[in-house]
């Protein structure tokens, strides 16, 4: 028996040694919980992961930006003003004389020149964002330049809508670095070329003009940013931003309720639901431009226009949004997300209508059951959506052979269009409607398999008039006319395309109620913490 008593004593002792927890974050630090183990670089010329964009958004600033509440309002940041030449091909920016970097150096056209050029020159993985303007290694020095008079000149290969070019420049790829500082840290690549400071900026240093500077990135663990002492704007209300890797939603919820973190960026629907009653917590609702859709490969002769339309009536959009999405998604059936220029047209013509769908299939003359090879990623929520769609489609004689696979094969099958249906998501690369319109609406006869990223072609669809409209829109100089073109293109696209857009993410970010001034962005992670304070 003595043995037993000893055991109990030891067990109790172990618990008792635990000291009480201090449950509050430091008042000068904003603690943000997120999943950041996917970040591989913080160099603004190549940053692309969600967490990386979030961090670089606080450190670097673009030439121009827009109001997340009204994206048609484009405002200068590092550029004070700009003009567009008659032919629409030359953009000239006058730099903001007040702007300066964390180093104290003024922000000049030379810095803009260096920053934009290096995206192309280092062959960055996101160079495609600028390469679409006809920029390449051979012409970038001539087309992207600081002029004698101190302005910055950005030349594109053809006439585009100015808003398109400006939105692209406003994206995280357009973050301007301090060229004087970065040039001091240029290194030679193994191949003998210049790395344009990539190695220096990638993990340990920053050279931006934003409200914060990078203090320490501990890969897969945390990112610490400190207030930029030389910030030229209104200094933020907290001294430090601490981005902590906390991948589990339930853990984030407990830590948020307990007060150990200020913002929980990765809460699932269940956890968002369960904190609703907590008075210490506020939930900010924003838009996210991520959309969930499935594409039908119309190379399959069974997928005639009638059958495609029937399938669009065979999905219980609202039901899925309510039961699976639980407020994290809203029904959205057009190709441009709400929040973007041209978005918000509220055109959702389809809802579950089994009888109508059956009638359409009967009209099509295609024999049922129609068996379709369907590929879906094995990560929530995709399989849940796919199963719900499978259940209703089976009632109209369309049988989905659901193949739930890993991310790798999922993307491979998508690229090689070796399937009938692909369930996936789409997030634009820059906050301009063209990112979506080009992918889903543009038809390129020279690239019938869509290897260059035209999804319409990848799914075997000649988008015809939609393609004309989106290509007209991207060149339209007048913002309102451009918007009208997207309106027309979207309705036609939704009615005729083999893409079934289902939902747009509604972002819900939970934070302690004493946190003020967070501005949620409109792409996946361009939230702005520059004006944050804690009361």
């Amino acid at each position, binding site marked *: 028996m003595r*043995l*037993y008593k*000893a*055991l109990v004593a*030891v*067990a109790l002792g*172990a*618990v008792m*040694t*635990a*000291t*009480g*927890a*201090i*449950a509050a*974050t*430091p008042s000068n630090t904003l*603690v943000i919980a997120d999943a950041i*183990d*996917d*970040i*591989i*670089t913080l160099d603004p010329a190549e940053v*692309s992961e969600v967490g990386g964009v979030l961090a670089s958004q606080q450190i670097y600033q673009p030439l121009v930006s827009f109001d997340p509440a009204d994206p048609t309002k484009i405002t200068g940041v590092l550029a004070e003003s700009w003009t567009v030449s008659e032919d629409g091909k030359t953009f000239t920016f006058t730099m903001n004389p007040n702007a300066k970097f964390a180093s104290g150096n003024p922000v000049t056209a030379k810095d803009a020149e260096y920053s934009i050029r290096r995206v192309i020159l280092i*062959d*960055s*993985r*996101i*160079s*495609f964002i600028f*390469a679409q303007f006809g920029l390449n290694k051979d012409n970038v020095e001539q087309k992207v330049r600081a002029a004698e008079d101190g302005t910055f000149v950005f030349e594109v290969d053809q006439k585009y809508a100015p808003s398109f070019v400006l939105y692209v420049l406003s994206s995280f790829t357009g973050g301007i670095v301090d060229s004087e500082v970065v040039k001091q840290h240029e290194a030679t690549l193994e191949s003998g070329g210049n790395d344009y400071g990539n*190695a220096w900026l990638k*993990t340990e240093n920053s050279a931006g003009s934003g409200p914060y500077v990078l203090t320490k990135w*501990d*890969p*897969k*663990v*945390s990112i*610490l940013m400190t207030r930029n002492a030389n910030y030229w704007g209104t200094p933020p209300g907290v001294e430090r931003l*601490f981005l*902590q*890797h*906390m*991948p*589990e939603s*339930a*853990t984030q919820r*407990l*830590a948020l*309720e*307990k007060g*150990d973190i200020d913002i929980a960026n990765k809460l699932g629907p269940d956890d968002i639901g369960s904190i609703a009653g907590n008075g210490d917590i506020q939930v900010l609702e924003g838009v996210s431009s991520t959309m969930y859709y499935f594409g039908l490969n119309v190379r399959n002769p069974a997928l005639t226009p009638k059958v495609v339309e029937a399938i669009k009536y065979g999905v219980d959009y609202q039901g899925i949004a309510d039961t699976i999405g639980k407020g994290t998604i809203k029904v959205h059936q057009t190709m441009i997300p709400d929040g973007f220029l041209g978005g918000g047209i509220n055109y959702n013509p389809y809802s579950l209508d089994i009888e109508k769908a059956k009638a359409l299939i009967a009209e099509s003359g295609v024999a049922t059951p129609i068996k379709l090879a369907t590929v879906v990623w094995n990560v929530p929520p995709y399989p849940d959506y796919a199963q719900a769609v499978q259940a209703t489609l089976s009632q109209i004689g369309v049988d989905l052979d659901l193949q739930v696979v*890993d*991310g*790798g*094969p999922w*993307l*491979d099958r998508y690229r090689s269009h070796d399937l009938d249906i692909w369930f996936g998501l789409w997030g634009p*690369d820059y906050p301009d409607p063209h990112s979506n319109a080009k992918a889903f609406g543009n038809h390129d006869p020279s690239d019938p398999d869509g290897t260059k*990223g035209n999804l319409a072609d990848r799914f075997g669809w000649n988008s015809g008039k939609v393609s004309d409209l989106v290509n007209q829109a991207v060149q339209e100089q007048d913002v309102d006319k451009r918007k009208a073109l997207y309106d027309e293109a979207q309705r036609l696209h939704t009615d005729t395309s083999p893409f079934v857009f289902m939902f747009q993410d509604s972002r819900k970010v939970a934070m302690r109620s004493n946190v003020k001034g967070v501005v949620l962005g409109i792409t996946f992670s361009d939230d702005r913490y520059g004006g944050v304070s804690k009361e």
Partner: protein
Amino acid sequence: MPATLPRPLKLLLDIGSWLLTVAITLIGLAAFTFFIGRILPIDPVLSIVGEKATPEVYQRVYLELGLDKPVWQQFYEYVLKLLRGDFGVSFSTSRPVLTDLLAFFPATLELATIGLVIGVVLGIPMGVASAYWHEKWPDHLFRIVGLIGYSVPIFWLGLVGLFVFYYKLGWVSGPGQVDVFFTGIVPRVTGFILVDAAIAGEWEVFGNAVSHMTLPALLIGYYSLAYISRMTRSVMLDQLSREYVLTARLKGASEFTVVMRHALGNAAIPLVTVIALSYGGLLEGSVLIETIFSWPGIGNYIYSSLFSADMNAVLGGTLLVGIVFVLLNMLSDVLYRTLDPRARSAA
């Protein structure tokens, strides 16, 4: 009688053959992991450049990773580098893999060691008690405790533990190694947060780290306790039924001496192996525990590297775990010889 070798020479030969075994084991492990990595349907280039990069960028990274060379040559070059102590660079952290391992492994080692101590200190007495009071209530009780630890999913226990002891009762700190207050205060010397805090004399940080570590360490401890107590029980049951136990009792030895000295003394030999293996298992890092507690350990490092096809990181991590197992094996061999007089005389 064969001519006996002089002692130093024999020792040298022993060490030589041991090193050879270790080398073959590790190269085999590296080869296995390497080729599995090549079969996996994850494209390392795509995971670096993303889905939308231009073909030129794809090609650049493809060449940078050396994927244009035949797989055999890639492996050969990897092993050559390895022999020079170069584990390569992880593309997801842009740091040498060795630096990464030194950053992530101590957190796991610290947690696993404390967990194992809990497992041994509590598990062995529980196993002994179970065997001694075989089929009586202590046995039933400890078996149920062990069964729960062994069969309840650890992530569930982790979440419930956080909910009760962190959220509701506030007895322990939550996820992470220390509070944000204390992050970065202690200079990194050994990488073990408790040791570093003690070296720096930052006792407040030390206390905070203990508070953060308590729950995950207890869980890991519980998990290893469940295994160790079950093994101890079965080994002890076997020993207690031996004739020498009866002899000892007949000679009038006290029950304590019979159980703790004679039976446990003999049971210790197989238990050393059990403990060493379960320590090895803990040192691989528990992905689930590390995820729930936001613990910057080796398990999560290997796991997230695998998902981004960061093969240098995966290989480095796997080799580290392999080395740990080899070392533990060696240690248990040494202990085995010390504990077992027969093994000693045979040597």
